[in-house]
Every structure is written in structure tokens, then in C-alpha cells.
């Protein structure tokens, strides 16, 4: 029997199962977009029938990183920008876990940019949700990598001279196999997208537009959004890389002009995940590695029997 019996339990799960009994020390401001992510994630987990004990939620640092305090599951609240490498390894160690990583735009696209690029490139089977509020929330409103050009903050008093980073395009060129953008102001779409992302076999990246009413009052996330999948104006094939790329550029331009487009931008269901690739070339065991440590009948190999001959 598996030592991890919570995995695949498949019982009826209610969104309230993901609500901690303890009142977390209140850290999110009233009206914060982060509540929208929480709601969508709870809804998605319940819809997928995942038990809180089979989910591992790995976060970075920021207001976004506090998601763990509000969401009941196994959690690892790591350090600024480093949720992805922790999450990746946990999934490699035990592919049975439902692994979700989350962080802010500063966390994920700034300090953790390198990990984002490489996790997408490797196509790890996991979901990455970035709370994109175009600002550093927790450290009180400094300019972030997604803040628009000219954005003024205490550390950029003359306005930012930098172009904002384009998370969707970056994700695509890096190699993510599922890329979507959604917004806290649309909980239904957000939930559906997170369900798909969690079901997707590969690296699924969700750029989640969240408002920060405390530090970023003029952000465009308040503007009514357009769901591109519902709108006839934006028909394109989201399984085609080039069409997806063009659409992403259009979306990223439009955001800075005041139109918020959301939806699924790229879905590649054919590409094997990193775990599968690694198994193919013989660099990863078929059975979850973590199970082995609980299997009393497993015969552990040792150096004396395996490697010493070549030193004799």
C-alpha cells in the first residue's frame, strides 16, 4: 500500500475543505485582488476533487506569498523568487502530488525571473500562478517589472524609464506549454482556467491580474476585461505558436492602452512533460522516488557492491 494514501483519494471535496480553521493573521487589505485568486483556486481544487493532503502549494514572498495562510493544503512558503525550484523538485520527488506554485510579479518575473524561464523551458508538470498587480505590494508600493513605463513610485519618483516585461510572450518563448491570463474581477473564468492549468500535463502558467487598491490605484486591472475566447473579434488558434505569439503581443500592447484581454493564449497538449522526458531517457524512476523510503521491502543498493570494482 502507498505511504501516501491521500494521493488520488478522490472523495467529494467542498471548497470549504480548503479553508483553514484558524483565522490567519490578517495580511491582505480589503478589496485586494489576491482574494480572487484564493477563491478561484479553492473552486478549482474542489472541482478537480483534489484532497488538501495531496496538494502542495509552494509560494514565494510578497502579499501573494501569503496565499498559503488562507488555503488549506500542504504548503511551503519559501523565499523571495524561489518557489519554482522548490516546487519542481517536490514534483520530481513525488509526481503523485498536485503541485501549484504561486507568487507575485516582483517575485516571479523579477527576482525569480531566471527560475521562471528555466521552469517553463523544462516544462515541469506543475501550475504556476503569478499574482500580477504591477506593483510590489508587501514592501509598500515600489515599481515592479510589470509596472507601465512612466509609473511613479517612491523609488522611481520621476517615473519608470523601463518598458514593462511581457509575461505571456516571455512564457511562450521560454517554453511553457499552457499559458493563460485571467483576472480577479472575473472569478468564473479564473476558476475554469485554473482547473485547466492544473489538469494540464506540463508547465502551465497563469498570469493572474490582481488589483492592489492600497498601492496601485490607477492600475488597469479595474477596467472591464474582455474574454478573448468569448469574443468574435479575437478568433485565433491557441494551439498554434505563431498565432498565439501574435495574440499575446496584441494583448500586452492593449493592456497598456487600457483594454484588458484575458483567456487561454497557448495550449500544447502534445509536448511531453519534463518528467516524461526524463523517464524516457532513463533518468527518473517509474515509481515515485518518495515512496521508496517507506517501502520496507525495497533493496537499497550501496557503493560497495556497485562501484568499488573500478577503484581496485
Amino acid at each position: 500500500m502507498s505511504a501516501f494514501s491521500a494521493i488520488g483519494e478522490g472523495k467529494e471535496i467542498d471548497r470549504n475543505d480548503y479553508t483553514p480553521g484558524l483565522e490567519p493573521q490578517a495580511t491582505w487589505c480589503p478589496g485586494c485582488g489576491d482574494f480572487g485568486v484564493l477563491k478561484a483556486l479553492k473552486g478549482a481544487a474542489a472541482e478537480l476533487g483534489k484532497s488538501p493532503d495531496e496538494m502542495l502549494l509552494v509560494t514565494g514572498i510578497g502579499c501573494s506569498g501569503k496565499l498559503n495562510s488562507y488555503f488549506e493544503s500542504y504548503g511551503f512558503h519559501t523565499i523571495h523568487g524561489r518557489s519554482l525550484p522548490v516546487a519542481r523538485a517536490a514534483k520530481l520527488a513525488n509526481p503523485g502530488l498536485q503541485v501549484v506554485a504561486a507568487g507575485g510579479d516582483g517575485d516571479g518575473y523579477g527576482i525569480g525571473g531566471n527560475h521562471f524561464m528555466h521552469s517553463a523551458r523544462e516544462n515541469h508538470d506543475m501550475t504556476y500562478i503569478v499574482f500580477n498587480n504591477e506593483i510590489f505590494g508587501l514592501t509598500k508600493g515600489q515599481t515592479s517589472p510589470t509596472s507601465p513605463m512612466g509609473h511613479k513610485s517612491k523609488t522611481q519618483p520621476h517615473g519608470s524609464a523601463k518598458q514593462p516585461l511581457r509575461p505571456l510572450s516571455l512564457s511562450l518563448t521560454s517554453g511553457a506549454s499552457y499559458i493563460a491570463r485571467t483576472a480577479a474581477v472575473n472569478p468564473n473564468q479564473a476558476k475554469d482556467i485554473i482547473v485547466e492549468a492544473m489538469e494540464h500535463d506540463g508547465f502551465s502558467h497563469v498570469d493572474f491580474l490582481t488589483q492592489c487598491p492600497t498601492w496601485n490605484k490607477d492600475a488597469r486591472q479595474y477596467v472591464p476585461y474582455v474574454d478573448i475566447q468569448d469574443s468574435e473579434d479575437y478568433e485565433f488558434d491557441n494551439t498554434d505558436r505563431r498565432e498565439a505569439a501574435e495574440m499575446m503581443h496584441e494583448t500586452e500592447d492593449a493592456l497598456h492602452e487600457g483594454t484588458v484581454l484575458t483567456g487561454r493564449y497557448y495550449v500544447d497538449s502534445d509536448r511531453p512533460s519534463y518528467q516524461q522526458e526524463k523517464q524516457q531517457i532513463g533518468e527518473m524512476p517509474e515509481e515515485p522516488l518518495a515512496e521508496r523510503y517507506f517501502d520496507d521491502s525495497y533493496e537499497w543498493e550501496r557503493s560497495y557492491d556497485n562501484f568499488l570494482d573500478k577503484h581496485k
Partner: protein
Amino acid sequence: MTNDELIWRIAGGSGDGIASTSQNFAKALMRSGLNVFTHRHYPSRIRGGHTYTEIRASADPVKSRGDGYNFLLALGDSFARNPQQNAYYGNEEIKPLSENLDELREGGVIIYDSGLLDASEIEDFDERVEENDWHVYDLDLRTMAREHGREVMRNTAGVGATCALAGIDLEWIEELMTDAMPEKILEPNLEILHEAYEMVESEYDVDAHDVKIPEGEHDEEQVLMSGSDAIAYGAIDEGCRFIAGYPMTPWTEVFTIMSQNLPELGGISEQVEDEIAAAALALGASHAGVKAMSGSSGGGFALMSEPLGLAEMTETPVVLIEAMRAGPSTGMPTKPEQGDLEHVLYTSQGDSHRIVFAPGTVAEAYTQTRKAFQIAYEYQIPSIVLYDQKLGGELVNVPASHFDEEPNPSLGSTLTEAEIADAPHDDSGKFSRFSYDTPEDNGVAPRSIPGQKGGRFLATGNEHMPEGHISEDPENRVFQMNKRMRKLEAIREELDGEVVNNSEYGEEDAQYGFLTFGSQQGTVEEAVDRLNEDGHSVKMLGVSEMAPYPVEQVSEFIESVDEVLVVEMNASAQFRGLTQKEVGRYGDKLSSLLKYNGNPFEPQDIVEGFEVNIVENDDHPHTRTKYVPAAGD
């Protein structure tokens, strides 16, 4: 210094096969029954540039490279020439001969490849030969190799000639070549080996000198191992099946050995984007229930500082390997130093703690790596194996039985689902993983692993409550802090009961003591023997536990002698500083012997250092003797 030893130096250019030839030669000598010790000297360059390896072989135990050497095989640097540009890289062409003469002992033997090296380019060569009574054999090894179709076989020709001159039975070499070489290249290599041997035997007087191979016998089977091998095998035997890393000299060796072996054992190796990621992956894998490691050298380890602290705060077991090289910054990539001690002890913010082992020998590298895993997983704390480029790269013979130990796949203090069900939970169903009550009162609360039913908790780098929720409550803070610190006392107690770690050497009632750590241990032991033979009265303590520090054992050692000379390879006496900080007294009893020119101590350095500091300098016991970098180093 015993004359009953062969110290063979093979010199040439990087990329010319010096390393593999010397490794095989060392193994052949080991198989013939001798004890061997190899020392590598190489530049931070991939191809070309002067490099050498020394093999010391004796029937007696060998613990260091020794002082100087008595047999030089100078092969020439094929990369010193650049035919396209008709250019030479400075005067490096002759280096394999010219650079090595200073340390060649009186009466020593030189074979040089006259096909590549021209002794007449070296000023005073003949005078020096005369003065030192060297025996010189100029053999055109290059032409001989070319005639056999492959110039790289100059090495084999040189080995054949060495065997003839040193009286080494060819059988040992043949057997080894047969084991190690693919059939296609075996035949011509065997031919050239014999041809060189016979040519030297018939055309030269092989008895003109008295540098001869000693005879020895092992009473049990030996294996030729480097410190890097021993660390990797120690990890594997402790059930480590996950490694994440990023290359950096000299840590790369451990990373490579693990990566080459783990997939066959059903494990996982990940080369990732940087060292922050590497350490974070090791944490992620460990959190999910796998024995995991990462590691690096100075600069890469600096990047691991934050994940290291996270491991302590979240009580996630992990083993990190730190391979020191000369710093600061990128320093001297291929040169040993022990300058990262403080870096490893104190990096990361807050009152953070880690366990640090610094093995002194290849054999200890194996046992202490195993111990590092045991402590990490039992006590849920990061532990570090600190070693240096010297220990990582040196090949020595170790009894094979040393590795004949049972594997230990235990994950340490974890719970089964049944045990979790009986443990306290909060209202939401979260398991009190960071509970105040620890069963053994040693600060350790057993953990659950993600996917276990009923075990969910939050691991966070912020201060947290028993179930993991972030908290700045003052009372909880003090509780959690004390709980984490309690582990250190328990670990200290556990280590005090072990005999494997800190090694004492010499007469128990000696008058003076040496204190050293890490790779210098063997060299100091040899110096202790020599000093005692010369009528001094000295002993040594090689400390392997850097944190928690063995205060009691070191205090007793210091108390038992009049003065202590602390030997370490860095410029700021970091180990002496640590000792003084930890034992809190005896400051006036300790003085330092420091070397930081990129080369490790040799026994003679320590003998001289003892004479300068202790014998001649009685009034100033705290002076530091420093070894000034030699020109060209």
C-alpha cells in the same frame, strides 16, 4: 624522511593525459602492495599549461605528498605549440622540465622527452645536474610513440621507461592497462610499453642510481579513492537519491560522480540554472520525502545562503557540500585553501545554525558524509560537508572494507500515516508539525511528508506556530527559537559519543600540540612523527567537527600541552579564531601557522614552522608564521 619511497612526478601539459596516466600508475603501485598518495597540480586552463601529478608510494603508510620528490618524468606540453600561428605561449614550452627541478631531491632521476623538450634551453642545467647528483635520461619518447601510430602514447612510453629505471615489474602495469583500455588501443600501448622498457634496460645503466621501487604488501584489499569519490559514495550509501547542482570547480567532481551513478540507482540528478535554484531544489525534494543534497564552491555557496536559512527555519533536512578553493571571489579556481570556514559557519541571516563537518582524510570523507546525512535527517537541520580542492582531488588507497557498510535509507524523524493520525492537529485539520512537545526533548518534532493523509502543515521561512502559520507572537517565538537551538545540544551529545570524527595523533603526554582541521591532518601527522624522531615532544588533534564545535575535547587537548600551533591554509587564521571563540580561553597558548599561496602544507613546512614559532620564539606564542607566496605560484 624515509628513503624507502618512490615519489614519481609526471609533468606535461593539461590535456596531455597526465591525470589518467598517473591515476593508472598509482593504481598499479597500489596493486603491487604499496601505499600511495597522489597530489595534483594544475592550472586553471583546459588545454596546455604546465601541470603535474605526484605519486608517493611506500610500504609504510603515506599521509601526504611528502617533501620534494625523487623521480621526474617530463613529457613536454604538446599544447604549448600552436602550429597555425607559429606561436609559442611564452616560455612554457620547456616548463615540464624547468619548472620541476627545484623540488627534485638529491640523487633523483630525470627522464625527459627529448622529442619535445630541449634541456640546453635551461640555464645551468648541467651544473645543477652535477651539483645534485641527478641521473638524467633523455629519451625521444615522442618519436617512439609516433612510430607506433599515436603521439599520445608518449605517456605509456614514459611509464615503460620509468619501470625499467625504478625496477617496477611490468606485469602490474600490463594487468591494469588490460583492465582499463578498450581492445583497439590496448595492443599498441602494450607494445610501446615493452619497447620503451627494453630499450632502457638494454641501452642504459639502470642501476646507476638508487631510486628504486620499495616492496610492500597489504594485508587486505585496497581501493584507490579520492575525497570526491568518498563523499559521493557516502551520500549514496546513506540513501541519497536526489542531487541538484550547478558546476563550479572543485565541487563539480562530486556533482559529476553523483550524476553518473544516480540514474542507475533509480535516483535523480538535476543540473539547474544557478546555485540558488540548486539548493532550493534539494529542499523541495527533501520536503517531499527524499534524501537530497546539493553543493558548490565558494561563490556558488554564497548564493545558497538564503535557502540554507530557509532549511533551518522550516526544519527541512538537507546536506550541502562545500568544496573550498582559494578566494576571495573567483580567486584561484584550481588551488586549495581553507578560507571558506567562516563563510560556511556564519552565512545566512539571523540566529541560524547548521552542522558542519570537515573531514581530514579520504576515509573520513566517506564516514562523515554519512554522518552529515544522519544528523540532517534525524534532527531536521541543514548539514554541510566542508572540504577543499586538495582532499577532493587526492587519490589514496583505503581498505575496501571501509566501505563495506550497510546502506541507511532511513528518512530520520518522520511519521507514518497511522502515527500522524494520533498526533495533535488544529481545528482545520492541520498537523502540529512544529509542536512544542518533542518526544525526546531534543528539539526534534517528527515530520509528515506531503501526500500523507492527515499530515498537512505549512512550512515557512517566517516564524510560525506549531501548525506552521506565520506568527510574531513573542512567546511562541521564544519557544520555537529554543526548540531549534535545543537540537544543537543534542547533536553535540550524540557526536561526543562517536569515535569516528576528531582524530588525535602522537604521544598522549607530549609537551606541544598541533591543532588542525580538514585536509591538513595527514600532513601534520607526518610532521609530528618527524619532530618526535628529532627529539621533540609533540602531538596533534585534527578537528573535523566545526559546528557544533567539540569544545570539551579541544579544551582538554589544549590544557594537556604547553603551547599549541594551529595549522591552516588561509591568511586570517579562521580556525584559530573559531577555536578561541568556542573554548573562550587559552588565547595565549595558541599561535598560528598559515599558508595561502595556493599550495597545501608539506610536512617540512610544519617542522620549520614549529621551530620558528615554538622553539625559537618562546616569548611570543601568538605570532603567526606565514608562508609567503613563491614566485610563479
